[in-house]
């Protein structure tokens, strides 16, 4: 089954008020940001999509696939699942080695040709200290856990709908992680507090008090700002890596940063 569109049918906010928005249609290839203060219901919104909610979650939203109500198997059977989700969780509860966990998950998803070593090596491109196949899941650090979750979602859960919750957390390389999770022709929703990521999405859903309040389309100017912010962000991330590596920072190229800021001021 090919997915070309999902529909989010409005539900209620935390006070029980109806979300006064028309059906939100998200098409194949579109990237949406989800923004709002903490506690505003961002994670609930993507949880609704992950479960393909049918009015049976706290928000009472309904999710349609290609305009139709999804079947029960599509909602629950991991072999048929169309949704990959990177949640905010920073730890694993399963008491088993990394390699066993990945094999077990591949089996659940019905993926036969998964190279566990490859998944781990991808995870290791995102984190500092490497993860080993024999490490127990529960001893991994927050960042290692997140990196492994990203690699698992990108490769083992590989799906046409991708939900990403605060990828900027836990100090992993967010740009690389986002690159891994995204792909041509997917439907992508990114919960974020990071302006660089939020402005780079084509549209963003504004959340408040548990409800969807507005949908904003990124303007041409916002896209330009996003590119500039991206450069500044990359520069800060380079500094972060230097600090992490125990280097002394002798000099910061403020000229480059100033150039970006003056560019921003002109806008």
């Amino acid at each position: 089954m090919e997915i070309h569109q999902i529909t989010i049918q409005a539900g209620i906010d935390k006070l029980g008020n109806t979300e006064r928005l028309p059906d939100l249609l998200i098409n194949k290839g579109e990237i949406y940001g989800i923004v709002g203060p903490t506690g505003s219901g961002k994670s609930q919104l993507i949880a609704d999509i992950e479960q393909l909610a049918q009015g049976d979650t706290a928000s009472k939203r309904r999710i349609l696939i290609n305009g139709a109500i999804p079947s029960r198997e599509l909602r629950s059977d991991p072999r048929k699942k169309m949704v990959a989700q990177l949640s905010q969780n920073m730890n694993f509860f399963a008491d088993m080695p990394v390699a066993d966990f990945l094999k077990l998950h591949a089996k659940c998803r019905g993926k036969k040709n998964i190279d566990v070593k490859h998944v781990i090596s991808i995870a290791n491109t995102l984190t500092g200290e490497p993860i080993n196949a024999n490490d127990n899941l529960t001893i991994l650090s927050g960042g290692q856990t997140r990196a492994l979750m990203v690699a698992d979602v990108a490769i083992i859960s590989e799906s046409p709908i991708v939900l990403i919750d605060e990828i900027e957390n836990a100090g992993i390389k967010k740009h690389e992680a986002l690159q891994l999770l995204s792909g041509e022709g997917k439907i992508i929703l990114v919960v974020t507090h990071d302006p660089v990521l939020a402005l780079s999405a084509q549209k963003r859903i504004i959340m408040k008090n548990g409800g969807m309040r507005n949908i904003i389309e990124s303007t041409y100017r916002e896209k330009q700002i996003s590119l500039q912010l991206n450069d500044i962000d990359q520069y800060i991330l380079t500094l972060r890596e230097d600090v992490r590596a125990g280097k002394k920072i002798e000099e910061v190229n403020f000229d480059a940063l100033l150039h970006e800021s003056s560019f921003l001021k002109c806008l």
Partner: protein
Amino acid sequence: MKFIIVAGTPGAGKTAVLIHTLKILLQQNVKPSVVKIDCLYSDDPKRFAKLGVPVQLGLSMDMCPDHFSIYNTDAILEFAKEQNSEFLIMETAGLCHRCAPYTDNSLGICVIDATSGPNNPMKVGPFLSCADIVVITKGDMISQAEREIFRECILETNPNCSIIEANGLSGQGASELALQIKSTEKVVSENESLRHNAPFAVCTLCAGEKRVGAEHHRGLLRKMNGMQEYVGE
């Protein structure tokens, strides 16, 4: 009478899920009675009573709560009859999880906590493997991958169960559980028997012996090497 038996690990959210489910059943004009079996103490009857359902508490004290609920089944069903309830929902504490309190013609519901790890479904025994419905709680606290693995491990232990992913806080999953309770075709009979035998516990500990070690004990004892023997006259 429809007899719904809810078992599960301590703290898994049996009561929280049940309260959401009862609210939905009440909205649909189903008027169940509730019996809660616990060991020493329980506040839950007050929480059930707030919903306006008839509720009875049974405390097993120094008896195994599953054994207690099993030999009190008649009294429990009688209570629901007196209330003119068509449905009796019994929530039991359960201790060693070697029992399954479900009878042949009851609807057996096992509530299990997803954060207990994927090895747990293999450990918990008959109250999971004999259940008709397995309700997984706290799935929002783990990653999607772990949720999927947990679900798979449950299906390996109990391939024919119906799985409901629920949330005791938000009430997610309760409408599905209410629907399955309401539509159950199982009707309790005069001569119910257990789906699975209770563990053997015919030993001096059952009679109150507190001293440890083999020399103080009689009865049917299993040794560390797995051999079982009868010690005594």
